[in-house]
């Protein structure tokens, strides 16, 4: 058994292998599908509050140093010390240079499926700090992306390009929420 404490150091080895095979993206998609078991129902039924609930548990269990809040239909999250990358940097094995990419790699497809726009940004891939924003309002996330580009952020990830799918899934989510009400 690889202890759950050491999973991310194994994950790091998986990423290095897959990167050599040019196989990261399909793997992220598989992990995203796997994560649906934990998140999909919660996010579809409770929206941003469901995200608070899920990542609130993760914050505790994974020992994250993270703050988040919801304001005007937007959920903001600031991870000031990511435990995952921190462990990978504190390892005797070489860190994968693309380690941070796994996070938007699984979160973005899940958000698209739940009908939310998502943007994640970070200053450096070897620094365990990042920001994420979630909303069903495309204009709000687009505005953040424009600002980030203006500010010179190099590492910006979002599902804005998948807007047609996000919009269609947002309608489905609204129907689910109405039927639950």
């Amino acid at each position, binding site marked *: *058994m690889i202890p759950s*404490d*050491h999973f991310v150091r194994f994950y790091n080895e998986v990423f290095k292998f897959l990167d050599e095979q040019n196989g990261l993206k399909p793997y992220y998609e598989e992990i995203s599908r*796997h994560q649906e078991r934990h998140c999909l129902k919660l996010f579809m039924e409770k929206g941003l509050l469901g995200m608070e609930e899920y990542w609130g548990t993760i914050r505790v269990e*994974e020992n994250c140093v993270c703050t988040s809040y919801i304001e005007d239909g937007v959920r903001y999250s600031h991870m000031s010390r990511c435990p995952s990358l921190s462990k990978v940097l504190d390892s005797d094995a070489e860190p994968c240079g693309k380690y941070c990419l796994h996070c938007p790699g699984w979160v973005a497809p899940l958000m698209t499926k739940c009908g939310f726009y998502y943007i994640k940004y970070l200053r450096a891939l070897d620094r365990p700090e990042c920001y994420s924003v979630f909303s069903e309002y495309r204009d709000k996330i687009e505005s953040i992306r424009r600002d980030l580009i203006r500010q010179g952020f190099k590492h910006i990830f979002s599902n804005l390009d998948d807007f047609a799918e996000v919009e269609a899934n947002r309608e489905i989510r609204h129907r689910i929420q109405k039927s639950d009400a």
Partner: protein
Amino acid sequence: MLRYQENNELHRDFHGTTNATLNYIAAHYGVDALKTILRKTGHDVYKSIREKLEKGDGSELIEHLNWFFYRERGKYQLTVSENEILFEVFECPAIRHLRKLNMEPSPHICLQTSEVNAGMCEGTPWHSELKVLGEGHCIQIFRKAEKDDTE
């Protein structure tokens, strides 16, 4: 002393992601590729354990097995003698958690143990062996080679 001191909260759902990853790598790249990744994990991530084993010192390996299975509420028995570490797991915490998540344990799940252990022992006088006795029940054996008489 453990190289990786872990003593705060646990996120056991990582066992689910590990399980999904084992299946994914085996299906897309083959079981040999999976073994290579796991063995490299044992060799590189657990360098500190391996380097001690190289010197004939099993102390960190013993501490590692004991601490992480204790932390995950495993049921196990650890028997240590001069040239052998015998670790019997009666209920694997990873498999127990997968069942809790209603996930089928990967057919490759025990490679986590056999290959990571083998990686830790690579280039050392120690050899590892895994005997799977049933679901969640195994014996992990680490045996130090006898010194060559010609030495």
